[in-house]
């Protein structure tokens, strides 16, 4: 018997039919899968939030990577935003999401301790969205922990139907999936209903579809760090649309399947092999040549 793929649309229907929020539904589902209590599951998520917060703080010290290629961007944006003449084009929520997302991505590149949610390369997106919303909506740790369960549930479906690995599906599968997880969680944490979570997930994939994985010299630095920042913005944008009641024409499951199909048709050169995209620009190749000669 062939195992059915996990389905976000089925979960949404089940949650709505039983009158549950997505948090309630997914906490019950995952506690059962892990054979633990709901309290134990949420305690585990809260322990992850502690590590996430530490990784933001470490990144904001302005750490540089061991290769010397990147570092200090999150700190620079934060410090710039504290100046009077700062051009705050996006507004504070989006700016903070980028600051925190890049802080964690820079902490990761500098061999800091991070939560690989969903992966190390895309580990900044959830922290960016979660801690920007925490700051501006004064969300409790409990709300954030429940939000992580929603993000994890969405990630489980993506992992089952497609992939979370840049080497398999390109950056759309890695930072893109992180954005979809963060968008759904953001909707949940701000009181959206299960259907709105599905729309947010679908909207993110519409906007990140085709994003390639093209790390300069194969390192998780360029363009990964800024992609974490921009994918945090994708998540906020999709959440804002979904919470406003805007629907996505394509159901979440089908959007995830479309992401898989695009990932399958991406050439190997654009899937984490440093064989194309930014990785093969003259500047990248020249830097890589010097770096590998060391």
């Amino acid at each position, binding site marked *: 018997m062939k195992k059915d793929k996990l389905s976000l649309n089925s979960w949404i229907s089940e949650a709505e039919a039983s009158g549950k929020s997505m948090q309630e539904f997914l906490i019950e589902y995952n506690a059962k899968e892990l054979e633990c209590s709901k309290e134990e599951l949420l305690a585990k998520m809260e322990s992850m939030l502690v590590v996430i917060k530490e990784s933001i703080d470490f990144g904001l010290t302005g750490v540089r*990577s061991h290769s010397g290629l990147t570092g200090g961007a999150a700190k620079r944006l934060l410090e710039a935003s504290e100046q009077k003449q700062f051009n705050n084009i996006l507004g504070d929520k989006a700016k903070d999401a980028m600051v925190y997302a890049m802080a964690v991505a820079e902490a*990761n590149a*500098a061999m800091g301790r*991070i939560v690989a949610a969903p992966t190390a*390369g895309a580990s900044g997106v959830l922290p960016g969205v979660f801690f920007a919303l925490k700051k501006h909506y004064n969300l409790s740790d409990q709300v954030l922990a429940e939000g992580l369960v929603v993000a994890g549930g969405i990630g*489980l479906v993506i992992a089952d139907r497609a992939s979370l690995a840049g080497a398999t599906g390109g950056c759309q599968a890695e930072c893109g999936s992180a954005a979809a997880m963060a968008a759904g969680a953001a909707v949940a944490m701000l009181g959206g209903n299960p259907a709105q979570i599905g729309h947010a997930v679908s909207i993110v994939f519409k906007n990140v579809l085709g994003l390639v994985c093209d790390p300069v010299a194969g390192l998780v630095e360029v363009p990964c760090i800024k992609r974490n920042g921009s994918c945090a913005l994708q998540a906020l944008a999709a959440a804002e649309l979904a919470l406003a009641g805007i629907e996505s024409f394509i159901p979440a499951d089908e959007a995830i399947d479309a992401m898989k199909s695009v990932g399958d048709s991406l050439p190997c050169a654009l899937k984490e092999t440093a064989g194309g995209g930014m990785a093969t620009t003259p500047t990248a190749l020249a830097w890589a040549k010097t770096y590998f000669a060391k």
Partner: protein
Amino acid sequence: MNIIDIIGPVMIGPSSSHTAGAVRLGLLAAGILGSSPVKAEIYLHGSFAETHKGHGTDMALLAGLMGWLPDDARIPEADKFAKEAGLDYSFDKVDLGSLTHPNTAMFKLTAADGSKCEIIGASVGGGQVLVNSIDGFPVELTGKLPAILTVHEDRKGIIALVTSTLASAGVNVATMRVFRSNKGGLASMVIECDEDVPQGIINLIAALQQIHSVRFIASVA
């Protein structure tokens, strides 16, 4: 896969394959040797050879050999700790051929008691690892479950003797692979189990006439 795999693990960056997976590969290699080595010649192939410095792969492999876990904050300075601990290590590049997984390391390890072991394994993505050669024998070992590795003579009934010995101790066989060099020659079994195998049972298996050697390999976190 469960939600803890998605929201986690906690690890030292930057790469699940080149850093966290490399720690687990080192841990599994030390587990196969039976202890942390006192001497480690490490050969890096493919992507491991090219990008190990930027990803801290070399630090991560040393960390694993010393028994550290992938979230240990000391990993970026593992070389310093290894020197202090008297671990005599070296890194070199090697070309194991185009069919070899790009994230492969070969270990030539020596334990404090002088025993030696040569291990080839790869970090195959998402922090998962696969050891595919131990002392020249082809194996498939993931470290997800405790396992036993035998080297034995290819004779009728030896597999049944080993598995019934495990069964008598209440150990369930999860997966099992048998390899042999040639019919009636030397053969090898990797048996992944759902439970740790007590030393007494390992001794019983070692005492079987056709068994040349048997070792227990603990699962790695």
